[in-house]
């Protein structure tokens, strides 16, 4: 089992009016004029400090991501820099980038160089995930959306070739052209760093991952639909002549552990407060549907969608599902009339998220069986806890991390052993053969 830790490094400014009223804020509508550099500096360093604790608590890795032009993720344009810092200040953690948005890079040779450098500084601890990105990322770096999928595939092929083929060579592709490819640094990991593919929606992405025998990581969905999406990977694996194992499948979901059930609930629900991801189930914010759905970015109609697409519709509607039967969803009831009514609605939304196992909260005693249910249902070889996000304070995060380290991480390892859930670092996904382990 690979056990990872993730959050989006939200930009938190509790005194700012926009932060207090993040509810209703539409994606790509907040000017960076509100950005306070002193807060940015504090938060980047806080999140690095927390990663050091993640390592102490026995996690195997940290996952980073990148969303641009938004307070909900400070990794936009910074993710690879953060990874480079982590490569130097941590000792054992895998640094899992899920991932670089390939189509928005006009010059992927930069990625070849940067990622190889991170792998070198960390002495082989980089996991290089690649994503297509949603429309907002194409807007941010002005990538031509109809060619998103073509650019993703070509950039991937180019990067792998540049990592694995001694230069110099020439590349005359459809979207990228180089007359001299000869990056001086080569990855520490040979033939190249592990590549993982995260996703939520697209069957093409699952098919691509299976075609290359790359692990597929389902990001923040719900249990039943994720199980169905994993079946799609297994089918694709068979079409490509191999049986998918636990080493090919990963699941990232929200977890918070605290000292009491009440504290776990009250703190855990901060995951959907503050400047949380606009696409999270229960988020206060609103995606821009037209920026998300740029021309040619996604195949129209349901043909290319995974079962989890149904859940994204739920998330877009902010907690439409999971509410009491026969009762209008909170997002459709008009503005709350009192703070108490608003609070009650937010709790109702969070309860729905808990019911769908998109998040588990509790004391160690109550959380561990819930995680076991996830492991038994999905049989993932990689599990990534999403924690310390939204409106979490440093103290909230530290309380959860310490309890995870003391109780949850060891318990997950035991359960994974019993359930024979092997990670890509134990069973090589490209061969399905055991990976030689270093002597203890």
């Amino acid at each position, binding site marked *: 089992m690979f056990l990872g830790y993730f959050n989006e490094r939200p930009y938190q400014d509790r005194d700012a009016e926009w932060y207090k009223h993040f509810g209703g804020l539409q994606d790509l509508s907040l000017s960076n004029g509100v950005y306070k550099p002193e807060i940015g500096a504090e938060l980047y360093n806080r999140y690095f400090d927390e990663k050091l604790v993640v390592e102490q608590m026995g996690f195997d890795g940290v996952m980073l991501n990148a969303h641009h032009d938004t307070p909900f993720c400070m990794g936009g344009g910074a993710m690879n820099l953060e990874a480079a810092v982590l490569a130097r200040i941590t000792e054992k953690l895998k640094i899992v980038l899920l991932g670089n948005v390939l189509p928005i890079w006009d010059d992927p040779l930069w990625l070849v160089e940067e990622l190889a450098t991170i792998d070198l500084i960390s002495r082989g601890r980089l996991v290089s995930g690649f994503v297509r990105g949603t429309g907002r990322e194409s*807007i941010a770096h002005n990538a*031509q959306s109809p060619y998103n999928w073509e650019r993703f595939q070509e950039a991937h092929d180019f990067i792998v070739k540049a990592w694995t083929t001694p230069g110099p060579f020439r590349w005359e592709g459809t979207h990228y052209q180089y007359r001299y490819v000869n990056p001086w640094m080569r990855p520490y990991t040979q033939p190249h760093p592990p590549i993982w593919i995260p996703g939520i929606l697209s069957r093409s992405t699952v098919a691509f991952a299976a075609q290359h025998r790359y692990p597929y990581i389902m990001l923040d969905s719900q249990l039943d639909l994720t199980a169905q999406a994993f079946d799609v990977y297994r089918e694709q694996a068979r079409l490509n002549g191999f049986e998918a194992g636990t080493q090919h499948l990963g699941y990232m979901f929200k977890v918070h552990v605290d000292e009491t059930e009440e504290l776990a609930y009250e703190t855990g629900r901060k995951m959907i407060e503050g400047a949380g991801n606009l696409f999270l189930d229960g988020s206060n914010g609103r995606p821009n549907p037209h*920026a998300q759905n740029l*021309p*040619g970015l996604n195949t129209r109609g349901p043909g290319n969608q995974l079962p989890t697409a149904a859940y994204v519709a739920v998330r877009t509607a902010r907690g439409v599902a999971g509410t009491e039967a026969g009762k209008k969803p909170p997002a459709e009831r008009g503005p709350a009339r009192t703070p108490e009514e608003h609070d009650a609605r937010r709790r109702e939304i969070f309860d729905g998220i808990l019911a769908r196992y998109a998040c588990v909260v509790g004391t160690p005693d109550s959380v561990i069986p819930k995680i076991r249910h996830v492991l038994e249902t999905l049989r993932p070889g990689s599990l990534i806890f999403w924690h310390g996000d939204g409106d979490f304070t440093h103290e909230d995060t530290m309380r959860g991390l310490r309890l995870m380290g003391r109780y949850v991480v060891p318990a997950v390892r035991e359960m994974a052993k019993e359930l024979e859930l092997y990670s890509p670092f134990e069973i090589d996904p490209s061969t399905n053969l055991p990976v030689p382990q270093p002597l203890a």
Partner: protein
Amino acid sequence: MNVHADAIPLQGDVTVGGLLLAADIAGSGEPVVVIHHSTGPLWTPYLELLAQTNQVVAPHLAGFGRSQRPSDARAPSDLAVLAMQQLDALDLGPVAVVGLGFGGWVAAEMAAMYQRRLASLTLVGAAGLKPAEGFIHDPMMTAFDAYVRQGFANQDRFDALFGATPADDVIELWDFSREMTARLTWKQWMWSISLPTLVRGVRIPAQVIWGGDDRIVPLECGYHYAELLGGAPLHLVADAGHNVDLEQPEQLARLTVDLRSIARS
């Protein structure tokens, strides 16, 4: 959608370069070729009016409407080449060409390529030139109908044509057309760095027509086109936005036919 006339235009579909390229054809008389907006081909009252005096040929540009998509097309000039070959395949002689908005850019490219193929050129709110001030409106973060509404000076006319909530097939056309447009012009958005030099040599009869309230392509682009085309007349149409053809079809039809007369004489 109320813009369809009772008389269904004929379909002049031909195969060019292995692609099926469609055209709607109606009326008789001297041919006028009308190149549609980036939102795609629609049979509109403007075309109906023109068809009363002329043979109207309304091609569906490659990748739009019923025409097949050339997956390797990368610029409006590519569509202009295909449109010229489409005119050959339709066996049309020198023709009056009218370009609407994005279609104006394609028409300008056609004229720059081989002006003898054109009897005259009418550019209506044409894209293709970089404004010195401001920008050509970018629809990518807005709803399809919001973009089309932006092209109307009077929103009641939009409602009259498309309804307050446009029909699914119209939205689908706008969605499909936006994708093709995005394949051709993304950056730079709606302008070509080389077009001024290419158009400056065009000396066929030409006119430039602009809606007085065009909020899509700045009017200064109209003046620039008029200057490049050797001092071509610039007609400002009052009470019209970018979609002059949809808001003032009678006036635009009259101006179109007038230029045909000038060109003939």
